[in-house]
C-alpha cells in the first residue's frame, strides 16, 4: 500500500506532497474519490504535524545520504569509494523509497513494508515530472519552487501510481 | 503467540547452555551467603545486599536471555502482556539459568506468581532459628527486578513461601509497578 509521496528540490524545499489511502476512519480513504484522499502540501491547508513530517522526511533522506557516503565500500582497483545511491529505508511499519536525480530532485514514496522496490516507478514518475512540469512553459515559479497547481502532473502521477501493484492493500 | 511452545524453546536453550556440577553451584552460593552473614552480621543487611547483587546480575543476564532465545526461536514475538512476560520467565528463564521450570498463576493483570518445586540454590539448606529473618534466596528477587528493569518494566518481586523455611514449595510474587519511560519523552517532542 502506498501511503505518501514527496518531491524535494536540492535545497530541501518541498515541491509537491500528497497522501494516498488516507486512514480517517475505516471507510474514509477509498470513498472520498478524486479529491478527498489527496492533500496538496504547497498550497497550504495541512496540519502542523504534516509540515513537521515534511521536514523530517527531507532531513532524514539528507543525513542518510551523508551516512551512506561514509560507509560505501572501496573499489579494489581504483581505491575510490563506490557510489551507493540511497534506495530504501525499512522500519517495522513502513518503507521509504527514495530516488535522487542528478539534478538534485528527490522523489520519496512511503509504502507499507511489504513492497520491496519502487525504483523504476520512481524513475517513471521522474519522467512524468520532466514532461509535465520541467518542460512546461506554463509552470510558474513560486517562492523559488515550481507552482504545479495548473499542470497535469498530479493527475498523471496519481493515474500512474494507482496502476502500481499494491497501491491499495 | 508463536507456534513453538515456550517450554520447548526453554529446552533448546538449556541444551545449548554449558553445564556445571549442581553441587558446586549450590555450595558456591552457600559460601557467598555465609560470607555475607559474617561481613554484615544483621540478616536485614544481608537480604538487602543479596537483592542488590541479584539486580546487578539481572541487568546483565537479560541480554543473555534475549540473544540466546532469539537464536533458538527466531519467530517468537516479543512479549505483549505482563502475563506473557511471566510465562517466558517461568518456562524459559528459569529453565535456561537454573535448569528447572516452574508453574505460574495470575492473581491480577499486573501480578504473576511463580511456584518453584525444587530450588537448586538451597538444596542442602535449613535456616537455623537464630537466622530466622534471612531470606536465603533473596538474590532471585533481585535478578527478576534487575532483568525486567533493563527492558523498562519496574517490578517488585518478593517471596510468599520458601522451601528452606519449611514450606513445601517456594513461591515468588512479581508485581508490575510501572513502565519506565524512554529517554526521549513527551516533553522533548513538544519542543
Amino acid at each position: 500500500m502506498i501511503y505518501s509521496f514527496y518531491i524535494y528540490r536540492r535545497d530541501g524545499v518541498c515541491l509537491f506532497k500528497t497522501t494516498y489511502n488516507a486512514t480517517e476512519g475505516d471507510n474514509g480513504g477509498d470513498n472520498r474519490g478524486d479529491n478527498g484522499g489527496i492533500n496538496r502540501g504547497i498550497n497550504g491547508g495541512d496540519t502542523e504535524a504534516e509540515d513537521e513530517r515534511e521536514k523530517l522526511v527531507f532531513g532524514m533522506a539528507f543525513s542518510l545520504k551523508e551516512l551512506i557516503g561514509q560507509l560505501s565500500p572501496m573499489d579494489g582497483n581504483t581505491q575510490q569509494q563506490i557510489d551507493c545511491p540511497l534506495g530504501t529505508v525499512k522500519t517495522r511499519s513502513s518503507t521509504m523509497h527514495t530516488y535522487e536525480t542528478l539534478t538534485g530532485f528527490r522523489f520519496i514514496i512511503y509504502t507499507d513494508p511489504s513492497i520491496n522496490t519502487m525504483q523504476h516507478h520512481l524513475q517513471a514518475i521522474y519522467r512524468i515530472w520532466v514532461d509535465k512540469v520541467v518542460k512546461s512553459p506554463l509552470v510558474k515559479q513560486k517562492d523559488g519552487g515550481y507552482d504545479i497547481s495548473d499542470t497535469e502532473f498530479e493527475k498523471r502521477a496519481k493515474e500512474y501510481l494507482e496502476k502500481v501493484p499494491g497501491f491499495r492493500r | 503467540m508463536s507456534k513453538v511452545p515456550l517450554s520447548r524453546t526453554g529446552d533448546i536453550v538449556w541444551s545449548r547452555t554449558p553445564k556445571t556440577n549442581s553441587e558446586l553451584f549450590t555450595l558456591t552460593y552457600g559460601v557467598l551467603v555465609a560470607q555475607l552473614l559474617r561481613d554484615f552480621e544483621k540478616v536485614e543487611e544481608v537480604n538487602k545486599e543479596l537483592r542488590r547483587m541479584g539486580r546487578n546480575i539481572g541487568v546483565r543476564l537479560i541480554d543473555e536471555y534475549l540473544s540466546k532465545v532469539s537464536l533458538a526461536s527466531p519467530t517468537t514475538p516479543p512479549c505483549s502482556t505482563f502475563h506473557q512476560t511471566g510465562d517466558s520467565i517461568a518456562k524459559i528463564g528459569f529453565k535456561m539459568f537454573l535448569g528447572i521450570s516452574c508453574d505460574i498463576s495470575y492473581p491480577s493483570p499486573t501480578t504473576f506468581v511463580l511456584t518453584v518445586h525444587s530450588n537448586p540454590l538451597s538444596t542442602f539448606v535449613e535456616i537455623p532459628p537464630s537466622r530466622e529473618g534471612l531470606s536465603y534466596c533473596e538474590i532471585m528477587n533481585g535478578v527478576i527486578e534487575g532483568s525486567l528493569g533493563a527492558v523498562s518494566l519496574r517490578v517488585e518481586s518478593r517471596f510468599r513461601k520458601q522451601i528452606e523455611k519449611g514450606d513445601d514449595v517456594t513461591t515468588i510474587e512479581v508485581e508490575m509497578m510501572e513502565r519506565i519511560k524512554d529517554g526521549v519523552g513527551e516533553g522533548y517532542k513538544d519542543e
Partner: protein
Amino acid sequence: MTFLHLFIVNKSGGLIYSTSFSPSSPPLNTNDSLRIGSTFHSLHAIASQASPPPSSSSQNYPPESLSSSSSDGIETIEAGPLTLRCLQTPTGLKFILTASSSSQTSMKEALMEIYAVYADFAMKNPFYELEMPVRGDKFDRGVRQAVMGKEGKGGYLR
C-alpha cells in the same frame, strides 16, 4: 558477499564498539565512527516519527505497548550495493552491520550471533562496565567468527 563494518551503540547513543572486516571497508577513524554511531542513533528515532501512519498500537501491554515507538526505527537500508542492517534489542542496544552485495537473511543471522557474543563476553564478563566501550580479545574473536560463519568459514555457534 563481504561484510564491511560493525557498530554497537548503547541506549544513549554512545558508540561502544566498532570494527571493520574487509580490505574494501572504507577507512574510518575513531571520530568518524563515533559520529556515525550517534548520527544513526538519532536518525533511528526520527525514522519512526517521519513514518506516515501514526504508529499503530495493536499490542496491549499494560499500560502501554512494550514495543513502543522507539523500537519502530530503521531496520534496513539499501543503497545500491551497500546494505545496512540494524538490530535493536529490547534493552535499547543497537547493533549496526554493513555489507556489500549481501542477503538480508545472512545479515540478520550474523547480527543475532553477534548479540550472543556480546551477552557472553561483555555482559557476563565481570570486569565489563555497563554502557562503556567493549574491549577484549575474546569478544573480537567471537565477532569475527560470527561474521566469518556467514561467509561460509566456520561460525561462533557450532
